[in-house]
Structure formats: C-alpha cells, structure tokens
C-alpha cells in the first residue's frame, strides 16, 4: 500500500459561473513527482493553487469536495497558514523578494519563530545547497536577490520554499521562464528533493514530464481524463483525448 500524501475527493472549483474543476478525484504519492499536464485553461494551475488554498484569496472562488493532507481535511482541520507552511509553492515567474539572498531564505523560518543566527545560517546553507545554488552565491549572501540571473532567482525561490521544511512542494511551470541549462539544473534539484518531499509539478513540457515524473495526470476541460505511471501514460495512453494531446504536444 503506497502512502497517499495528498488525496483529492470529488473536488469542484468554480469562479463565479465558470466551473474550472469538475468533480476531480485523485491522489499524490509520498516521495514521488507527479506531473500535471493539459492545455492552457484546463484547470491544472487552479488545482495546484487549491491544494495550498491560495484560491482563498480570490473573492469569487467557490470550492466543493475534499482535499486531505495526511488524511486531514485541509479546509477544516488545518489552518491556512499552517497548511502553506507544510505545502510550499514555487511559481512560474521567479519572484525573489526585494531583499538580500540571505533574508529571502530567512523570511519563512523567521515567520515561524526561528530567530537564532546560527540556526538561520545553517538553514540558508542547507537549502541553498539543496537548490544547487550555494556554490554560486555563498560569498554574496548579503547581495540583493534581484541581481541574480533568472535561473539563479528561481533556484533561490526553491531554496526559500524549502527553508520552512515543506512536506509537499507545488511547482507551477517552474522552469518555463528559464533557459534550457537553468531548467535542467532545476530538474536535477527536483529529482534530488523527492527523497524528502512530495512534488506536484504543472508542466507544459512533455519531455520534462517524461524525464522527471513518476506519475502523470492529464487534465482537459476541468476533468481528469487519464492518470497513470508516466512511462505507461506516454507509451500506451488509453483515452483518445490523451493520445491526441500527447501527439500534438510532442509535435
């Protein structure tokens, strides 16, 4: 029996009159990478944002159904701030805070009560190493984070997310704004991270899904059309829609 870190049960998400997600049920295995694929507007980003309740911020958003994190209902049994500490997120566009590299990393831990410089130093080094950024920035920790290159900024954002020791990491097309070399570095980081995190990654790149993910979920029009082990989904898709999507996406 695999450990289901996150379990989604009959989830529907509506913005005003528009149904973005329609009665979705699936699960995400612990210590694995799951890729969410599908064309733009299919609801994959909304699914991601629902899992750490960033959808709470959208006034006209209505959520029905359940999401369980370690069998606990994220809407009823876990506070939003605690949930977001446990379920981190990396966004499409690198977005370091306008402060030093060090303070970017320390922001999360400081919120959660870690004040000692020794602890923070250690967190900074560990997370920057995990994000494969330490060697490039270790002598410039006081430098403003916005001075880094795009790829470095995104790795900093990963390090920043890791600094609060999340159990789940949501990645919303985290490599799509980057050059291939930087993207490859981040893929390596993701493979490394799955030892201690459950990763759910929205991606537009089929090649990337094949390279890094264990399981792939294909969404279309707010519904899950097909989900399977990545190798299986891409080599022998069962649904006609999946076949068509993979064919057009791979060109």
């Amino acid at each position, binding site marked *: 029996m695999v450990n289901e870190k996150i379990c989604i049960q009959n989830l529907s998400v509506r913005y005003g009159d528009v149904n973005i997600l329609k009665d979705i049920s699936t699960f995400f295995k612990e210590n694995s990478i799951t890729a969410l694929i599908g064309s733009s507007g299919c609801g994959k980003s909304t699914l991601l944002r629902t899992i750490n309740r*960033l959808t709470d911020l959208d006034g006209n958003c209505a959520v029905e159904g359940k999401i369980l994190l370690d069998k606990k209902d994220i809407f009823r049994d876990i506070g939003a701030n605690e949930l977001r500490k446990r379920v*981190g997120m990396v966004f499409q566009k690198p977005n370091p805070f306008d402060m030093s590299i060090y303070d970017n990393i320390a922001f999360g831990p400081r919120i959660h009560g870690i004040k000692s410089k020794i602890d923070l130093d250690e967190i900074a080094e560990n997370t920057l190493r995990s994000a494969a950024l330490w060697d490039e920035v270790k002598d410039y920790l006081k430098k403003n984070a916005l001075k880094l290159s795009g790829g470095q900024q995104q790795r900093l*954002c990963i390090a920043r*997310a890791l600094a609060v020791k999340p159990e789940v990491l949501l990645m919303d097309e985290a490599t799509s704004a980057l050059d291939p070399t930087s993207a490859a570095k981040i893929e390596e980081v993701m493979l490394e991270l799955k030892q201690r995190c459950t990763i759910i990654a929205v991606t537009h790149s089929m090649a990337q899904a094949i390279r890094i993910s264990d399981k792939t979920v294909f969404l279309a029009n707010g519904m899950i059309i097909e989900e399977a082990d990545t190798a299986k989904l891409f080599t022998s898709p069962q649904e006609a829609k999946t076949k068509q999507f993979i064919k057009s996406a791979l060109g």
Partner: protein
Amino acid sequence: MLARDNGRKSMKISDYFESLPFLMSAALAVAAVSAICFFLIAEGMPVIKKIGISKLVFSKSWRPSEGKFGIFSMILGTVYVTSMAALIAVPTAVLTAAFMSKLCPTWLYKVFKTVLSILSAIPSVVYGFFGLMTVVPIVRNTFGGDGTSMLTASVVLALMIFPTVTAMAEAAISSAAKENYHSALALGADKVRSLFFVVLPAAKNGITSAVALGIARAVGETTAVMMVSGNQTAMPQSLLKGIRTITANIALEIGYAADDHRAALAASALLLFAVVLSINIIIGILGRKKQ
C-alpha cells in the same frame, strides 16, 4: 532605448505633418511652463537682486508698507502645515492603499475607489468651507483659541492630499509584487506580515512618488488653507495659533500690491515654483529607477 531611437529615426517628413496636431498640443504645454517660468523670473528677479535672496528668505518680518519683505514666517508656515498634513495623511493613505489592494473584498474596493475619486474632485474652496464650518469649531471647543490655526489647516490639508496619495499608492501596491505576495503567503506568512515585509518594500518607489506628489499638492494648496489658518504674518508660535502660508500670502495681497511689494510676491511664487519643480524632478528620478 534602442527600440525608441529606431522608431524616431525612421520618421519621414510626411509623418511629421501627420503628427503636427499632437506636436503642437505638446508644444503648448511646454510653452506654458516656459512662459510661467519666464514671467516669474522677470517679475521676481529685480527684488531678489535688490534685497538679496537670503534676506528675502530668512528675514522674519513681512511689512510691505515699511519695505520689509521677509517671508521666513510664511516659509515656516508652509513647511509646518505641509509636514503635519503629510504626517497625518501618509500613514493613513498607505494603510488604506494596502487594505484596498490586498485585504478588502471586491465590492468594498469599488466603494473605496468611487469615494476616493469623489474626494479628489471636490473643489478646494469646498474643503475650506467644510473646514471652517466643522473643523474650526471642533478645534475651538476642544483646545480653545479662535479655532483657525496651524492644527486646523493641517487637518484640512491632510484630508485634501489623502485621496491623491491613496490612489497612487494603491496603484503602486497593486502593480508591484502580486507574485511576491502570494509567495510570502505560500511560506505560511499571514496577510498582514506579507503586506508589511514583502509587498510594501517592493512597492516603495511607487509609494515614495505618491507621497512626493501629495507633498507637492500640499505645498501648492492655497484656498482651503487660507480659509482656516488665521493668516497671521507673525512667526508660527504653536499648533493652536494662526499661520500664513506662502501661497496664502500671495493670494491675499496680490490684489493691492504694487512695485516692490508686488515683485516680492512674485519672488516668493518663484521660490514655490522651484520647490514644486524639484519635487517633480525627484518623482521623475524615482519613476525611472523603478524601471
């Protein structure tokens, strides 16, 4: 930079004719600024030369009938009233802007937007009238004195610059750092902390321009302040005593001033013009930095 230069170089003569109406309209604005500048210098320079810039600025007595043209008390009046108004309006405006852009529900946001645009459209004289009828009696009854005072003027002025600063700061906060805000929340930070430690710092240039614009407006504001500030030319003594601002001084006396007196008023207008111009230049520099 490059793209812009290319765009201009490739213009043909026929293009210039097409853009002539636009060019002429733009030229009108430049001409107006130049004309004002020229007029103020022409009117004000002789008296500045005659009595000296330092005597004009630092001498404490303004007695036109005796040929004493020191505007120091009015400069202080303007500085005090402006800074106190900023002290009241800026924190309130920035908090309101932050609330509007990140914390309040959509329907309330629309209400605020409408209220702000109404507030900024109310004529100055109406603010003055409101100040005279409500703020003046409140100050009089609470603190004594006759109610027309530095405090009253500051409160009315704060009310006037509040919508300007709020609207601009709100735009700056909303456009800056949406992703930053979400990232901070995604780290488990609460909304207030995310706002103060991530969003406001990211919007600081925009907020600074908003504050600078508010101050520029406060420095130039005349009618409302004149109606509630008492207008004594003596040195400002306390919050509850009257003061006169530079703008009020010009408005009050230009009707009957002649010769040196008139020139001294023009010179003080020149001074104001220089101050507001510098504030605008600072706003411009801040705006460029942002990009």
